[in-house]
């Protein structure tokens, strides 16, 4: 089975923020380091999906492993960008509450042969809300130009990524029953949007390091 180039590009572009971060790895703020980990996990997950898809023909079960781990890392990243202790605690509590709940629902209700039509929207919606909240709350409180802030570009990219990801699971499951050509169109559209989202996140990784943060990571 051959995959369209957009899907390969969408998988590879996840490494762009990693390359951007490695350009000035010394003194990189903690949030950006954790974000690099999230990008690496996303790329590794895609490689694993590809390998299991080619070898066994079945890779949907991998979602039960990769999605909770990726979500937990991203909640942690977003918690590091919070200004108030309350919202930081809230993001971290989401890891403790949401991830086990999603795992239980995924294992008991959804099964391993699903696109995540039930758990996917829950996690993606929570991450979309967390990304948009971080984007708006930090923007309003910022005293520097937003285009120089890493969190601005990264949360903007994440908002785009999750806005389109929320409905992907149910839509994919609905289309899987019928003509898979339509499913391919949906996945290609999402892949193109993901490329754009990761380009935005890479701009964030290339932002100049704040002087106070480069000396003392958050």
């Amino acid at each position, binding site marked *: 089975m051959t995959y369209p180039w957009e899907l390969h590009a969408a998988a590879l572009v996840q490494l762009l923020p990693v390359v951007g971060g490695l350009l000035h790895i010394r003194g990189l703020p903690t949030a950006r380091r954790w974000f690099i980990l999230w990008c690496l996990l996303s790329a590794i997950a895609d490689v694993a999906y590809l390998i299991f898809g080619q070898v066994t023909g079945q890779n949907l079960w991998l979602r039960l492993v990769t999605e909770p781990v990726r979500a937990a890392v991203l909640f942690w990243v977003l918690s590091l960008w919070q200004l108030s202790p309350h919202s930081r605690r809230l993001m971290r509590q989401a890891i403790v509450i949401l991830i086990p709940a999603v795992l239980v629902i995924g294992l008991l209700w959804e099964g391993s042969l699903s696109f995540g039509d039930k758990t996917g929207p829950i996690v993606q919606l929570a991450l979309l809300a967390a990304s948009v909240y971080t984007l708006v709350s930090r923007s309003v409180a910022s005293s520097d130009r937003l285009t120089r802030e890493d969190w601005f570009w990264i949360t903007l990219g994440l*908002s785009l990524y999750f806005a389109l990801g929320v409905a992907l699971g149910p839509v994919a499951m609905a289309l899987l029953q019928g003509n898979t050509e339509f499913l391919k169109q*949906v996945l290609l*559209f999402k892949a193109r949007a993901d490329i754009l989202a990761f380009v935005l996140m890479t701009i964030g990784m290339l932002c100049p390091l704040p002087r106070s943060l480069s000396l003392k990571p958050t």
Partner: protein
Amino acid sequence: MSASPLFVTEAYIASGLALGLLVFALGAALAIYQRRTLGLRQQLDDCRRQLGAGPADG
């Protein structure tokens, strides 16, 4: 009754485009708002400085 695959696909793509535009509009609005706020803050600082320096100059 279930929706046709074509409808589901087109609805996903149309809503995806709309949400994407919304995200960009949000980012642009925040950047413009922030720029204006910074400009106003700068003007306020200048006014304060002038007022503070006024008696000493006069």
